[in-house]
């Protein structure tokens, strides 16, 4: 199995002196489903964002999908991002346009700027977009404007857009943190089944420990910008998980 992500001593220090990542070492192999857990500000988002340079790392090395992230030129970086799906907490869709158009946007990376407007896309891309929408169960909403959808539906649209990129690796930054529990469960269910059927590697920052335990194979705990826990989900004990949260009692109760 090949490594999809290799981080060595990866660090991120903001201009104001705050150290979000302090030398993170992490290897994620192809086909793994990994949960990143940790309290607010532990560095989960920072790590994911650094892996595709949405945030510029300030030290160490990151190799994502075989590309050295910090050395990549403009074009190489775009190709890297095209190959890596990124799912955001706040969906990051364009609100005033249709669901279909948002999904087609996922093809811009490989098909070019003309995919900004679905009318200018090839029939193949249009058909593919409908297939992706169908996969997330929203084909019937293709013509609706995004700002008329619920949070859960919007995250599904965002996942459909990610699928249009034909990624091998998906990074999900708190994909269910803005959703109610039921919608959150649906989205996690969807992410896992898609990952299995398309043989995707997924790294998801998760706030809910129970989701991490249910849907992933490996749990990586971050604390204060460092990896303090890294083991198979099956072997994770409640005490280890609560230690990641600094022994936070509420999180411990959730685990039990």
């Amino acid at each position, binding site marked *: 199995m090949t490594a999809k992500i290799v981080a060595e001593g990866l660090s991120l220090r903001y201009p104001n002196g705050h150290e979000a990542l302090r030398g993170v070492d992490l290897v994620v192999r192809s086909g793994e489903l990994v949960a990143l857990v940790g309290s607010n500000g532990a560095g989960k988002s920072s790590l994911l964002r650094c892996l*595709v340079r*949405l945030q510029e790392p300030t030290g160490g090395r990151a190799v994502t999908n075989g590309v050295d992230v910090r050395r990549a030129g403009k074009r190489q970086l*775009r*190709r*890297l*991002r*095209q*190959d*890596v*799906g*990124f799912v*955001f907490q*706040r*969906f*990051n*869709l*364009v*609100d*005033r*346009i249709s669901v279909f158009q948002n999904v087609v*946007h*996922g093809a*811009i*990376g*490989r098909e*070019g*700027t003309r*995919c*900004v*407007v679905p009318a200018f896309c090839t029939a193949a891309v249009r058909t593919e977009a409908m297939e992706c929408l169908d996969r997330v169960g929203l084909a019937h909403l293709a013509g609706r*404007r995004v*700002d*008329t959808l619920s949070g859960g539906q919007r995250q599904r649209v*965002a996942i459909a*857009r*990610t699928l249009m*990129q034909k990624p091998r690796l998906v990074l999900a930054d708190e994909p269910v943190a803005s959703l109610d529990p039921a919608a959150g469960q649906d989205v996690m269910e969807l992410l896992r089944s898609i990952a299995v059927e398309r043989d995707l590697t997924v790294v998801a920052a998760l706030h809910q420990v129970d989701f991490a335990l249910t849907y992933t194979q490996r749990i990586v705990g971050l604390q204060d910008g460092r990896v303090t826990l890294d083991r198979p989900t099956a072997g994770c004990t409640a005490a280890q998980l609560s230690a990641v949260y600094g022994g936070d009692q509420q999180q411990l109760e959730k685990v039990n």
Partner: protein
Amino acid sequence: MPFRLRRPAAPPAGPPARFTRPSAAAFLSFVVVAAFVVHGWVGGVALQPADLVEGVGRLGEFLAEAFPPDLDRVGAIASALLVTFEIALLGTLIGVLLSVPLAVAAARNTTPNRLVYLVTRGFVSVCRTIPDLVWALIFVVAVGLGPQAGVLAVAVDVLGLCGRFFAEAIEEIDDGVLEGLRSGGAPERAVVAGAVLPTCLPSFAGTSMFALESAVRSSVTIGLVGAGGIGIELSVSMSLLRYDEALTIILAIFVVVLGVERFSAALRRRIMEGASR
């Protein structure tokens, strides 16, 4: 037991002072403004009651001569007014179209780099701070008398307005929306076309209609300096003391400006409703 007055632990603080000392800067600016007013009054920029009374009388004479409005040249006036309206429309269209790329370069979240940002911001500021009448004078020198100079002056004026407000609208976009496309490997031009334009469209359209309203008014006045349209007609009628004809022109201008304002206000309302759907 004798009655004893108990002293409070600390006397209550008195009310705040009746007058507070103004800061040195506030005092200085007051003095400067007052100096300008006094200097202007003494130096001739004043309203003299005697002149005002006389002026009201002359205004009466003007109105008496102006009524009834002379409709003899109404055809020529209408066609000059049409030119004025078309100057405004064409100038606004050009100004708005140029404003979009300029605003993308002049918005902090979409500009390619800091130098481009500063240069475009500066250019937009220059367009905005020089008054339309001055632009008209400059373009009359450059391309000669006529509507062409008017269209250019309006376009530059609109550029100053729209360039600034478009850029501000772009800066208000949530970063996440742009990141959604960037994270999928989209080049910057696709981010602009796919995320920035659709998100800002209601705001751009509203600002553009506002620019058209102001352009119609300014294309009347820039006609006075020879930049085409109705302005020169009005100027000639006034200097030939043909007040009845002048009144026709003024009324015609009033109708057109009001019509454009009403139309634009209605359109803006519809756009805003669509935006918040």
